[in-house]
């Protein structure tokens, strides 16, 4: 039986209202309030927990150079007297210098390598089985960008822990940025092979040099990409043979692992890479960040040498590549640091976990709050809290951490690279002790 007309209209109206209400409700709750305005939390430099350091200049005074250009430094016991020393490369005078710790806390500087054009990296190893540590120097020819083949691999052969004989193993090649010694070919004679990073500019490469004895080396190029910055050595895949990594910047911005397959064969594989051509890769080092026994990689990006408008970029900072086995790595961003260089690791606050540290060369130095040294404290779960350690000296490229005082408390050593203004907060080599 049909509904009477008024009732029909009323039913229609009621139905429509109900439908509209349902529609409105569904629409309202389904679409929600829109994406949250809340932004992802940004790690801000924190004043707490506090880590206070006292800075002490050591070695040559700033005035000796005018504007010091420390390109790299390392902490080593070069003369094996039980006291850590500081070795550094200085680009203003083209020298390699040894700040020897003659007695605990007493530092005496000596130039051990002269006329080494654009010294960029220094490391030590007993290359030829003499029982003494030789000094390996990467010579760029000139530090500022150049595509010319002006690089060299130089070894300062340690004659008697006081005198060093300069040997040029290779020259007139794409600019060399890193040389390290390692037993890559499974030798049993105590001699070591070399890993060589050649930044070049548009043209560069990565190679290893097989020690043939009597200071003769045979080169094997393993990668032809330009921009290799550092090439640290470790057994990354855990097979007992030493592998090496390479940080390849320029247009590539990648970390490569060269897995040692034996018999001089190295398998090149990309561990990680940024698709940001301007990422600014600046430093790579080995550290077991999560203490799982596998060597991880710590990695800074903050390079500004090639910028015509130098300065920070929002993506500059620190990251670590977790070694997940089988030569594979997982990327973890640690934090921001404009102009970051020289990734280091140490237990800075004594809590038993591996903290990270980096310095800055290309921050916005017109800002008095710009950070020149930053630590990231590890809570043991690889959650890092940034802690500002210093605002000056500015323009830091080199840093290293070690137990210089022999008391188990890590001491930081930094080097200033003052090629760019402002020049009002300069330093050469600075030693940082915890208060």
């Amino acid at each position, binding site marked *: 039986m049909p509904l009477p007309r008024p009732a029909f209209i009323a039913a229609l109206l009621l*139905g*429509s209202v109900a*439908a*509209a*209400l*349902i*529609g*409105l409700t*569904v*629409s*309202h709750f*389904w*679409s929600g*309030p*829109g*994406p*949250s*305005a809340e*932004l*992802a939390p*940004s790690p801000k430099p924190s004043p707490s927990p506090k880590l206070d350091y006292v800075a002490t200049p050591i070695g040559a005074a700033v005035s000796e150079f*005018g504007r010091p250009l420390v390109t790299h430094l390392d902490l080593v016991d070069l003369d094996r007297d039980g006291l850590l020393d500081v070795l550094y490369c200085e680009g*203003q005078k083209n020298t390699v210098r040894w700040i020897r710790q003659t007695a605990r806390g007493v530092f005496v500087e000596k130039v051990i390598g002269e*006329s080494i*054009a654009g010294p960029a990296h220094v490391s030590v190893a007993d290359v030829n089985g003499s029982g003494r540590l030789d000094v390996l120097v990467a010579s760029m*020819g*000139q530090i500022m960008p*150049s*595509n*010319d083949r*002006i690089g060299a691999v130089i070894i300062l052969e340690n004659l008697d822990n006081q005198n060093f004989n300069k040997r040029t193993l290779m020259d*007139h090649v794409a600019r060399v940025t890193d040389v390290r010694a390692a037993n890559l070919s499974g030798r049993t004679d105590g001699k070591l092979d070399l890993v060589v990073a050649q930044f070049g500019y*548009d*043209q560069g*490469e990565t190679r290893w040099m097989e020690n043939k004895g009597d200071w003769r080396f045979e080169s094997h*190029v393993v990668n*032809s990409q*330009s921009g290799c910055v550092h090439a640290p050595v470790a057994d990354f895949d855990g097979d007992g043979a030493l592998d090496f990594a390479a940080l390849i910047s320029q*247009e590539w911005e990648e970390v490569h692992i060269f897995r040692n397959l034996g018999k001089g064969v190295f398998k*090149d*594989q*990309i*561990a*990680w*890479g*940024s*698709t*940001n*051509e301007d990422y600014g890769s600046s430093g790579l080092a080995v550290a077991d960040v999560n203490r799982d026994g596998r060597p991880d990689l710590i990695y800074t990006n903050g390079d500004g040498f090639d*910028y*015509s*408008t130098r*300065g920070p970029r*929002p*993506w500059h900072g620190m*990251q670590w590549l977790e070694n997940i086995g089988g030569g*594979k790595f997982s*990327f973890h*961003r640690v934090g921001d640091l404009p102009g970051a260089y020289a990734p280091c690791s140490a237990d800075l606050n004594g809590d038993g976990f591996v903290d990270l540290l980096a310095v800055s060369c290309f921050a916005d130095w017109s800002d008095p709050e710009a950070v020149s040294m930053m630590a990231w404290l590890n809570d043991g779960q690889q959650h890092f809290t940034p802690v500002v350690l210093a605002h000056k000296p500015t323009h830091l490229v080199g840093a290293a951490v070690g137990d210089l005082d022999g008391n188990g408390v890590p001491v930081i050593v930094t080097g200033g690279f003052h090629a760019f*203004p402002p020049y009002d907060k300069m330093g050469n080599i600075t030693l940082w002790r915890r208060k």
Partner: protein
Amino acid sequence: MAQKVKKILAAAVLFAVVAIASAYLWHRFRLPARVHAGLPALPTDLARKPAELARRLAAAETLTRERAHAIEGASELGRLYHANGYLREAESCWRLLRAEQSKEARWSYYLADLRRTAGDGDAVASMLAETVRLAPNYAAAWLQLADFELKTGQTARAETHYRRRLELVPRDPYARLGLARAALQQDHRSDARQLIEQIVQDSPDFSTAHNLYAEMLAAEGRAEEAFRHRNLGREAGRFREAEDPWLDELQASCYDPKRLALLGTTAFQTRRGDRGVSYLRRAVELAPDDSAGYQSLGTLYLQLGEPAKAQPVFEQGLQLPVRGQDRVMLTVNLAESLRLQQRSADALGLIQKALLDAPKAYELHGELGAVLVDVGRIDESVKAYREAVALAPDDADLNFSLGSNLLVLGQREAAIFHLKRSLTLQPTYPKTLIVLGHLALEAGQLEEARRYWQPLYDSHPEQPTARHVLALYHLRAGEAAAAKKDAAAAEEHYRDGVRIDPDYAEIHANLGVLYLTQGRPTNALPAFEAYHRLRPKDAQSSLFLGQVYAQLGQFTDARKILAEGEQLAERAGNQVTAGYCREILGHLPPL
């Protein structure tokens, strides 16, 4: 019964229509509220930014309140934030827009860009995957995705996506480079090599392929080809990223002078000078009281070889109350732009006045030296350069300038000290290598000259002077070998010389003469032809060529060229050469 069902169905349909329409209308009605809820607050530091940025942000924010323009406003805010370094705010906008317009690929693409900046690989991968799903024809996104995959060890996926890019951009060097690198990762070296060769052939301006190819060739011991490709790579200039219109269009929303300066200089470095000028002009307009903008724009004009345009820019910068190093550099650059317009007297006055205010600025002393050289006052220029070097002993340019001017004054020992100092600082400093090579040559130290000129050529084979001086070494070395009767060594040097500098006429002539004296006219012919081509008005070139034509029995050619030679020689008053031409003509068989 059926009718009742129909009625129920009709009522249900009507109910659904009304519900859906209501939902839609409510959704539309709530748009501005949703947009507002999703947008971040305006940044608090805008007072320190150009007013134009604040004005545009405010205008865009107002738009978001209008129902019809809320989306437009939000996207404008996103562009402004993204392009001016407010990355977290930009991310909020793009997230909001992605939620509102789920079919628009740009939003996920921009989010991918921001997540890339934050080092968030997982989000980059997912946003790029979304982009290519929504916009399968946007080639830049496929490249980004493939590059990301290659760099995170997903080689097979990367290969697939590089191929997709190649379908969209046939012969694309970026995709081919990616495929080559993927092949290398899989130890497929011959495939990689083939792809690199394809790029070198199809995209000769793609420097990276030349650079990689050069190293491949070098590893095979093919040094000369490697050298050639290194040089081609250098000539092709810096690597530049693939075109990406969606990211590029963000730059139009940049109102941050520092960012614009960066964009401008990057554009110049990648051979987009016009675009660079436009960015830097905008930087100056936005911050007319900041001398850095004038410095960057003026310098770019100087680099582009336009000193007349640079001059007023530096002058405007100097009208600001700038002090210290900024003032010094503006003055030095203004003086340079004046000098380049042959207005050295004006430059001199400018620098002398500036030195009164900044007597310790080595840059001013250096520029004073350059101006004084221009006006021929070498004694004074040396004094100025000495001042400059005393203040900046490790500056390669200043050491070279001091050394080269000391040389003009005859102070050779001091000159060589400073020239060598410049080489210590910059081992391939071209001007020093040229000068020291000439000094060695003058002193008869041929191999010493080569020690300077070979690295010059190796570093700058594209420079005519570098080619010329190394060829000059080979010319002199060839002559020395010929004098010692070592014809083989002489020939080798001459051949090296013309290979390095094919336009060096004297070397062609010497090579031709050497062949003739050895009774090898067939070998001499191309050498003399080259000599004559390079020196068509030189009677001697006609004489040599005619002589070799005659020896080879090409009498018609010989007659023609010798007649020319005779005329040229007589016109030049060179009776000896004219006589030789006549003599050979006289011995030719009659026509």
